[in-house]
């Protein structure tokens, strides 16, 4: 009843865990039955190992949190060597989240992932483009299009592009990414925010800005998922502030085929499981036989 076919892959339910909030899955294995999830998305991977940012990395705000992890990750090679096998043992689709700070990095990363048996690549275009002065790849559609095109050419894996809500025009961004060859769109990544330590009289984060996630962003994320779902004809994976099954159903009704749970994992490590169970009970109560009946109904 909860199963979804997405880019040719069978997901037993639409509830995935969002990149960067669930490590490589093993971290949560003592607490929940990871094999019940719809799918796993890796922490953002870059071609080479990254140590991430210095200073404070997370800061709680009302209704959400700011993070500035800075893409700390072991690099793609070490991921393949040390973590991929472990992730596969849960028997659910594995999506590798790919980051990069130049088009070459992205392309090389995609090429290596192409040779593994991961099921899909989620391309994170919210990374700063180091070569062009640090502005994110995900702000201007024309810039994003270039990355997507290049990555598209370097892998046969299904390619899902993860949009940044900071994009100048989210709908145009989605359309351009699809034109460039994206098989699916996921959205949203974190919103550019900031916080100030009023006693130290300086920003909380070394990089001044950080990414806002959690319930606070949900109404905006939902709106974006709705707009993008109407505008593209590839399937959409929705996320941003989903913390219970009602939020999840809203995203599905807005048009999402799959959804991802991020910050909610920190609020309640069982959140994703409870959301799967909640959607199921909702469907029973409302006599819905398949998600097709309600997807995009709004």
């Amino acid at each position: 009843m909860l199963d979804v076919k997405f880019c040719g892959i069978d997901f037993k339910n639409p509830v995935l865990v969002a990149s960067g909030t669930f490590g490589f899955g093993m971290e949560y294995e003592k607490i929940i039955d990871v094999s019940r999830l719809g799918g796993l998305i890796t922490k953002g991977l870059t071609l080479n190992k990254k140590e991430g940012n210095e200073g404070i990395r997370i800061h709680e705000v009302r209704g959400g949190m700011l993070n500035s992890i800075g893409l700390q990750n072991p690099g793609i090679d070490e991921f393949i060597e040390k973590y991929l096998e472990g992730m596969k043992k849960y028997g659910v689709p594995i999506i590798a989240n790919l980051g990069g700070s130049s088009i070459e990095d992205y392309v090389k990363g995609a090429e290596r992932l192409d040779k593994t048996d991961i099921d899909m690549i989620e391309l994170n275009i919210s990374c700063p483009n180091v070569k062009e002065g640090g502005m994110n790849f995900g702000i201007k559609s024309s810039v994003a299009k270039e990355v997507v095109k290049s990555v598209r050419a370097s892998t046969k894996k299904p390619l899902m592009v993860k949009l940044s809500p900071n994009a100048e025009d989210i709908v145009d961004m989605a359309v351009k990414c699809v034109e460039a060859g994206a098989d699916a769109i996921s959205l949203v990544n974190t919103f550019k925010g900031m916080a100030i330590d009023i006693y130290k009289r300086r920003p909380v984060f070394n990089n001044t800005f950080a990414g806002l996630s959690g319930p606070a962003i949900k109404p905006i994320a939902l709106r974006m998922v709705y707009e993008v779902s109407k505008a593209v004809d590839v399937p959409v994976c929705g996320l941003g502030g989903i913390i219970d099954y009602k939020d999840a159903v809203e995203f599905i009704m807005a048009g999402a085929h799959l959804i991802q749970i991020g910050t909610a994992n920190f609020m309640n490590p069982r959140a994703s499981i409870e959301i799967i169970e909640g959607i199921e009970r909702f469907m029973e109560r409302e006599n819905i036989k398949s998600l097709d009946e309600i997807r995009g109904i709004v």
Partner: protein
Amino acid sequence: MEYKEVLVYSNIKVEEDIYVLSLIIGDDVKAGQFYMLKAWDEEPILARPISVHSVEDGVVKFAYQVKGRGTKILSSLKPEDKVYVLGPIGNGLDTQKFKGKIALISGGIGIAPMLQIAKGLDGEIDLYAGFNKSPYLIDEFRKYCTNIYVTSEKDEGYFKGFITEIFNPFEYNVVICCGPEVMMKRVVEMCKNYATPVYVLMENKMACGVGACLGCACNTKEGKKRVCVDGPVFKGTDVMFSA
């Protein structure tokens, strides 16, 4: 490690803004480990990491200071109230492996984890506890410690000054320290001079508590480590303090 709902056994105010919360948790806990505690539903969104203060037949005690939104809510808990706990978390301290003369050094609420540590240690234990305000939780240590040195900026009858002024690393086989980073950094430097082994308990901001979010990273000689699962106990000489 487990995530579950447990009941409050008691929640006792021991000093201005300092409480001891006892939860009915039957876990097997190592000294130096901690739990993520959440006594609310959605807001604030994150759980609070709090060290194990002491374990006594089926009850885990936490000593905490009220700082902000989360600990404020903790302080209002009453017996039979429900609390979500995730834990026990972290490497903890293998207290059994330490021998000889051991110094426990704490700053403020850094004294919290020291009790269970003291209980597990075998050697001759001295406690050095520094406070800005009135001292607290000291009495509990009398059973386990040979000497107890207390400093307080506020109360009469205590040494006024930093713990580091009265502590001499040379006298000890092992030093275990928990407090503000500036203090831990200073203690580690002092110990280095005498090559005295020193362990520190780090406190970084945490989101997941399971090693997944990388929010709690701390710099060590071997690169970034996660305080939640690679720590919270580190060799003092491995940590690159930011303070």
